[in-house]
Structure formats: C-alpha cells, structure tokens
C-alpha cells in the first residue's frame, strides 16, 4: 500500500500521463485520493501542532504576555510609519481597547474550568490536537467545493468526467503540499530572533513552489479526467476563481456605495 502510494506520488509530481490515467481509471481512485489528502494535511500541520503542544504546557499568562509584546511591537512600527496613527487621541483609544482585551484574556485564562479538577494544560492540549485533526477536513471541504465548480465549467467546455473521476483526479493536487511540512518547520525556526527572518523568506518560497506545483497538477488532472486539452483544463480550473474574484469585487463596490449613501444620509 505504502509503496503504491509512493509510486503514485512520484508519477504525479513528474506529470507522468500514464500515472494520471491509471489513477483516474482505478476503482479505488477516490479512496486513495482522500487518503493522500488526509496524510498530507496532517503532515502539513505537524510542526504547528508540535508548537501548540509546547505552548499548551506554558502558562497562559506567559503566552498572552508574548502575544501582547509582539502585538505592541508591530503597532509601534505601524504608528511610526502610518500617518493615520499620528493622532494622539486615536492612539490612546486604540491602546485602551487592545490593552483591555489582553487584560480580559489574562483574567479569563485564570478562571477554573467547569469541571474544576481538570488541569487547564490538558484542555489546551486537546484544543491543539483538535485543531490539528481538523486540518484534513478543512482541506477536504475547500477542495471538494472548488472541484464541483471546476467540474461544472469543464462540462460546459465539453468535459466527460464523472463526479467520482473528477474528485479522484483533482485530489492529486495535494501531493506537492508535502513540502508544507518544511514550511511548518521553517516557520518554527523563523521565530528565532534576527536569524529567523531568512528562514521566514525560505518558508514563503517553498509554500509558493508547492502552491504553483499543486495548481499545475490540478490542471493536468482535470484534463485527464475530462479527456480534453490542457488549455481547456486551465480555463476550467481558473474560471471559478476568476468569477469568485469578480463577485467579491462587485460586492465590495456595492458595500462601498451602500456605506457612502448611508454616510451621506447621516451627515
């Protein structure tokens, strides 16, 4: 099973047409695709999960203090460079509100749980574990929703994929996201002061490569499942995102117009 998966991953990463075709034709294609997605998503979230495990054993006060320090540093930089922050009244109001929010967080963290003998670190550990286990589901939800739209456009462009074949084929896009394991690791190393900046950049680059590689695999998988050209597959892959973007822009314009009308009404 593992050797089969490795062979599949290798073929997918090298855009081997025979591998794509064999995967799409296989009865277990969707099962394998889903399994790949679960494994890769869990790997991608592994280092952030380790980091959360460590955090769950630290006192919440220390965690909040660190978050507050980082937040205040970032705000101090903003206040120096952004003219909107030069107004002392706005600054005071802002510090008042956000300082208060950190205080609230600190006091809530000190509250005993509903079942008071339970240790709070165990609650935080369970929370971290839950977040990590939720990663594959988040990926699955986003991928399945997008794949349905791509399939719709593929059909309009003359595609011949069935729903099962389409989902099975496009699930292969996760394979290069194995690299997210390293982005997670580099993000952790990136927290080291001064040196960390270099690793942060590298992590972004690896993430970008994994993303582009994944899109290219998605296009190839769409073409294979629908038995049409790569050009049509590219259109089918991009069109839902493009339409979504246009919709967001249109909604933003409507919202801005609405706010402007409301503001003129108030004044």
């Amino acid at each position: 099973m593992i050797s089969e998966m490795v062979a599949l991953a290798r073929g997918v990463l090298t855009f081997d047409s025979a591998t794509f075709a064999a995967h799409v034709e296989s009865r277990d294609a969707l099962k394998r695709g889903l399994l790949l997605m679960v494994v890769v998503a869990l790997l991608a979230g592994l280092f952030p999960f380790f980091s959360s495990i460590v955090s769950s054993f630290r006192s919440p006060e220390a965690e909040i203090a660190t978050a507050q320090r980082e937040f205040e540093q970032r705000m101090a930089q903003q206040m120096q460079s952004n003219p909107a922050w030069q107004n002392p009244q706005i600054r005071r109001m802002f510090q008042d509100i956000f300082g208060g929010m950190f205080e609230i967080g600190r006091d809530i963290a000190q509250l005993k749980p509903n079942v008071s003998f339970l240790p709070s670190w165990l609650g935080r550990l369970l929370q971290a574990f839950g977040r990590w286990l939720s990663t594959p589901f988040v990926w699955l939800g986003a991928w399945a929703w997008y794949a349905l739209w791509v399939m719709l456009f593929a059909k309009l462009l003359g595609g011949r994929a069935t729903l099962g074949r389409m989902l099975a084929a496009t699930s292969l896009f996760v394979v290069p996201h194995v690299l997210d394991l390293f982005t997670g690791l580099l993000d952790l190393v990136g927290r080291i002061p001064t040196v960390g900046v270099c690793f942060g950049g590298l992590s972004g680059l690896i993430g970008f490569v994994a993303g582009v590689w994944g899109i290219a695999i998605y296009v190839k998988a769409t073409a294979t499942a629908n038995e049409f050209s790569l050009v049509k597959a590219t259109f089918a892959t991009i069109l839902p995102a493009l339409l979504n973007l246009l919709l967001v822009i249109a909604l933003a314009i409507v919202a801005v117009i609405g706010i402007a009308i409301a503001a003129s009404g108030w004044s």
Partner: protein
Amino acid sequence: MEAKPNLFQMAFGAFLLREDAYAGMRDDAQRIKRALILVVIVGLLVGVTGAVGRLVEWAFAPPMDKMQEVVLGHLMKMSWYPEMSRNPKALATFQQQYNLGWQIARVFAPSPSALVGIITTPLSLLIVWLIYGLLAHLAARMLGGQGSAGQTLACTALAVAPQLLNVVMILPHVTAAGVGTWTLACNFMAIRSAHGLSGWRALAATLLPLALAILVGVLFACVGLAAGGAALSQMGGAR
C-alpha cells in the same frame, strides 16, 4: 453469487460516489427499511459522538457567567464607559445588548445540554431526509425522471454517509468541514441513479429543493424582520 453488501459497506460505497452502491440500494427489495435503518444509525452515531465531544469541551471551558462578569468588569474600566454611563438610556441599551450578546454566545458554547443532540440529531436527519427526498423526487419527475418515490428515498438515504465524518467530533475541538458539499455530491449521485437522468437534469433536481429551502428561509427572515421592525416602531410610538 455475490453476497449482498451490508449497510456499512453500502454507506462507504456511497461516500466514495460508487454508482453500484446507489444502484444496489435502488434495486433492493427492502430499500425503505434499509434506508430508514441507515439514517437512524448514522444519526445516532453522530448524535452520541457529537454530544460526548461537546461535553468534554464544556468540562474544560471556563463558566460563561464568570466570563461575562470578567469582560464587563474590564469594559467598565475603559475610558468610554464612564462617559456612556452618564446617559441612562445609553447605559440601559448597552446592558441590554451586552446580555443579549452573551445569551447568543451561550447557544453556541458547549454545555451539558449537548446531550439532547443524541435525540435531536437522528430526528433532524430523518426529517431532512424525508423532506429533501420527497422534494427531490417531485423535481426529478418534473424533469423526466423514471424512479419511484421509494427508490428516490432509498438512494437519498445513502447521502447521509458523509455525516459519518462528523463522528470525529467525539474528540473535542475537531470540526468536520466539507460534509455539506459531500452530501450534495452524494445526493446528485442518488437522484441520478434513482431516476436515470442526464447530468444536468440530475443537477437541477438536486439543487431545486435547496433553492426552495433558501427561498422559504429568506421569506421567513423577511417576515420576521418586518414583524420585528413593526414591533420596535410600536414600542417607540408608545414611548
């Protein structure tokens, strides 16, 4: 002769969008009985596991009433609060809104009342399955479908299979996203298989009940808003 797949195997096949799983259910002599058992079992599983997960979340969460007190205490220390409290009307409105906000938060926060889900989850799954199945059947027949109501209900019962993903919620703080999308895909397969419709017609028959539900929801929301607005204006008039 091949052995008949059990319900779990059928649900697994349906989850993986295998046409033979839907065809098997469509042609089963005891399809309605099996469909009913499947929906109830999945509902019970999801209900019990969800309730356990929520209960554990509640056990580790701080009490809501104490959180409400803490937040209010800090808000009262903020510079805008004394200014606002000079105006009794503004203070009353703030308190009303603040309490309402916490009441809404309590609805979504984990609590021991999550145990009710053991009963409400299978019940709601059953009701949604019956209503959706019948509406989808009507839509499919209008679009030229050939299946019977029993066949539609039997096949759409298999679309509860993605709900099994929610079983992971036995672990606290785990969320199973994508269940709705996968259910939609399963319903499409179910209607297509039950009625032998083309892809586009099956898609229309799958979406029509949902469109109708959204329309009814919007209508109810409009009526609710209008009624609320009228009540508020009456209250304002009375003052």
